[in-house]
């Protein structure tokens, strides 16, 4: 009597293939799942109370970032525009648009709008907008082609490795200070090199990857 039946080979092969498959799935789960867009919410535009378009306001009308994000040069937080800021224009234009109803309601009832965050950092990360602006890091370095977005979506993973990639080597991401808020800035041959700007803005990299720079 044969020890192994006719189906033994099949079982063996199935087991081997299954084990390899399981291993591959595990590797996928460990290496790939964390970085796929579904998980990082990269390129994901959450639903907002008002379908605000940066493309229209920035690229179309030419508004400066700081018109709405008033705190970005002074504070850790860029500042979300208050209802009153929206209403400086929208009390005059598109006053009847149904799209802007929540805005008008907010002003009338003195109840703030509730936007959904696109960029969220954990509580133990202390990011400061103002210092990045002062050192010549343009808005688009982190926020992508924000000026061309119809709905706002997240342009990066916000993973620590992504933060560190720049903190370890900021030079390629720096630009002249007066171009920081330009959503369509491109490096040209006449632009000062990253290293020149590093020296000019006193950016020293020795400390930039210290834990205590962001974690307190």
């Amino acid at each position, binding site marked *: 009597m044969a020890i192994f039946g006719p189906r033994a080979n099949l079982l063996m092969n199935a087991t081997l293939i299954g084990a390899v498959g399981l291993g591959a799935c595990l590797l996928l789960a460990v290496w790939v799942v964390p970085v796929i867009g579904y998980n990082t919410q990269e390129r994901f535009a959450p639903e907002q109370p008002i379908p605000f378009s940066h493309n229209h306001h920035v690229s179309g009308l030419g508004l400066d970032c700081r018109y709405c994000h008033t705190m970005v040069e002074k504070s850790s937080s860029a500042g979300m525009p208050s*209802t009153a800021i929206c209403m400086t224009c929208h009390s005059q234009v598109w006053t009847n648009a149904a799209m802007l109803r929540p805005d008008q309601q907010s002003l009338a009832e003195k109840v703030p709008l509730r936007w959904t965050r696109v960029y969220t950092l954990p509580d133990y990360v202390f990011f400061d907008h103002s210092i990045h602006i002062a050192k010549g890091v343009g808005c688009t370095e982190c926020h992508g082609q924000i000026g061309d977005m119809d709905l706002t979506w997240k342009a990066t993973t916000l993973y620590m490795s992504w933060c560190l990639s720049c903190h370890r080597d900021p030079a390629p991401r720096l630009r002249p200070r007066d171009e920081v808020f330009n959503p369509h800035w491109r490096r040209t041959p006449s632009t000062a090199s990253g290293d020149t700007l590093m020296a000019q803005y006193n950016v020293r990299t020795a400390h930039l990857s210290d834990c205590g720079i962001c974690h307190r």
Partner: protein
Amino acid sequence: MTQPARTYWRSLEELAEMPEFAALVERELPRFRDVVNAFDRRRFLQLMAASMALGGLSACGTEPNPRQLVPYVQEPANVIPGRNRYYATATTQDGYATGVLIAHQMARPIKVEGNPDHPASLGGASAIMQASILEFYDPRRAQTLVGGGEIATWEGFVAALHDRRNALLSRKGDGLRVLTGAVTSPFLAAQLARLQQQFPAMRWHQWQPLHRDNELAAAQSSFGRPVGRTFDLSAADRIFGIESDLIAATPGWLAYARAFAAKRRPAETGGEMSRAYAIESTPTLLGAKADHRLGLRPDEIEASLRYLAGLLGAGPQEWAQQDNAQAAWLKAAADDLAQHKGNALVHAGREQSATVHVLVDAINGALGAFGKTVRLVAPVEASAGAKAQSLSELVGDMRSGKVDTLLVLGANPVYDAPADLDFAAALRRVPFSVSLALYDDETALASTWRLPAAHEYEIWSDARAFDGTITIQQPQARPLYGGHSAHQVLGILLGGGSGDDHTLLREYWQQRAQQENRGDFAAFWHDAVRGGVVPNTAEPPISATPRGDAVTGLPSPMAPANGIRALFRPDEGTWDGRYAHNPWLLEMPRTFTRLTWDNAALIAPGTAKRLGLATHDLVEISVNEVKLTVPVYVLPGQAPDCMTLPLGWGRAAGGLGAGVGFDVYRLRRAADPWIAEIASVRKTGEVDRLATIQGQDRVLGRDLVREATLETFKNDPGSIVKKEKPASLYPPFEYPDRAWAMAIDLNSCIGCQACTIACQAENNVPVVGKDQVLAERIMHWLRIDRYYSGPPEAPTVAFEPMPCMHCENAPCEVVCPVHATVHDHEGLNVMVYNRCVGTRFCSNNCPYKVRRFNFYPYTSQNNRPAQSWNPQVSVRDRGVMEKCTYCIQRIRTTQIAANRDDRPLRDGEVVTACQQSCPTQAIIFGDRNDRESAVAKRKATPIDFVLLEELNTRPRTSYSALIRNPNPAIKGNQS
């Protein structure tokens, strides 16, 4: 290991090297002795099963959506998210104001700092002031207005008071009484004066349990009128304290402590140093800092002071002829004081008898202190009457039915009045009583109307400091729990309707500014409110000398007690009981006992031995025919035959403090508020485990404190601290850019605990509770270790603040398996909470024991609103190690601000929380690489040393050795 120059010990058990103590140290894990026996295997399995079964429930319920972004509707001017804005106001204690600046983050008050422009603060802030922010947010504060046992409204109360007012007007206010604490507020005083005009038969009474009636009575007999005394310690080369609270609690003590410490840093003043003497029955901060200290019974104190007065010509010659066991000591001190006439100062604590205070005035007169080290000023209080008498009269009238309307504004006599008055019984005879209180306290619950009071940070008011300087208090927020102020209640009674306190106060000041010719009112008001000080309001000094006949008319000397005397003393944290609901103050280790969450009867080691008592024993004492069961704490340095009983505990109602500790007010009598004979002490045989942190770490013969005499410092400063070049096989790590470092001066540290609480407030350090303290899990990032040396009956005390040392060769870092604690390029030992997996290896390997572990989710268990935490600092959860960060959030925000403007960081720009609050500037922080920085200069002095240098950890925190200035004429009695 170098041999210590003298033997230091932290607890009596350690000194005695009792076998139990040795066993405790020997046990592998002493920290777990409370935990491992907490439940058995069966119970453990039950709990585990239950937690598994219920685990899913945690997913239920709604949480606020963290992904929401909520902008303003209309943004307020000048609010910058992430940046502190400061608003000036004042906190008051017993009526006296200390100026503060309150840090706001997006309009939320988060931290209290001292106002550098205010004379009572000079930038320092006490532990109690720091903790006031937690009281402000306390959700246990009174929130419900109750009238006649039913929930009522403010409008309902206003209507009821209006009716009452009409009735009172018809009889000119007969039967109307107002009871307040000590009042320094000019506006409240003006309101009360107007009330007196409207209701001529009304009477205003004052009560506070920790009153200064004895000082006041002494002023009356010494100067013939009530005067206040303020002190100039910058001129005082010799200080003699009689159980003095000069650098601990007296109004203005923060400023006094600063001036005191400034004269005791010989390394910075070129070898100059003041000398302090202290005689006391129970240890005080001044006694701990004194170069010579005697622990004396109360009767001995009085006798010694008479002796001293006789020697100095402040009393009859024959006083100096009497026998005194301490004659040699006192003679030497008297000679020293006499040699420094004009630069000497004698001060007695508020608990001393009127006799002692009269003697102090006479001695100060003989030493020419008036006008130099002691300034007399008109009383700062609006009505400087004796509080005990005022309350007695009120209670007498209440009892005889003469009082039908009683307004209690900010006092709690049902709890803290002398027991023989029985205020509660008298209050039941008053048909209409109103209590305005911050908590639903004992008096509020016994009154017919109880009104939630607004916190000091929620109202407009004014208050005066010890020297008379007025601060206009501005609210930091609208009342969180709907409270009201005393001004509003009095405003209604004055017929002004329900006016808001801002309008009332502004009207008063408008008039006053006009009378005082202060120019444009709007500008004056703006500057006064903004700066926190009304200019030129300090009281001018009065010139007066004590009358010669004051000492001759003194009563006969106090006789020695037959048995043991009870001394009623304020508590460092709860004060008179008003702060008994503040968790920070309840868990603050007391300076000498290192006790938390309890008060205890303090007795001397010798007395304890005689009575067969030990720490933790419960005894039943009988005082004034009242019996009370109290735990005993054997305190080195306590005078024999007296038992100190800290007031302010054992609250019956209110908030967190209800039922914590024992209530000493039950023993107190109006006639003798500070002292009483104990008729009997009976050991009950039971034991109450006191949560003292003193024995939790041991000295074990290590050389942790360096001290020397001024003489040694002058002759051979190099011998005090032996500096050894640490050897290493590896090249040193370079810090070319900046090297953050801290220098702590042991001469300046007075052990007041302000830094501990400032750190707790700044760094979101949680409170853990008594059980956890007993399990050695207290969380303070900065503790003040207290070391004794010498005999237990009369030890010398040294205080040593212990933050993280930020070792350059940090032992914690090499044992962390996940790199959760690492060094940065400026030398900070950084703790990365989100990496920590809770192995606690780092804590085990830390030779300084400054790391703290979250065994439970303490921060979420702490019942405090989310907005009260400092948003600049991570709130740590269970399973995470934490420790002092040198206030990295302050370093970063200051660095970012400087970098943003492309300018270098200035020395002194980064100030740690402990440094900022320290009244004596004992702590300096800065860049060690900058030769001109204050920290580098202090570290360059010859007396700078680091702890456990032999371990080669190279700490960034260093200490200046303790220098004492003993009197060469006093031999072998340097204690």
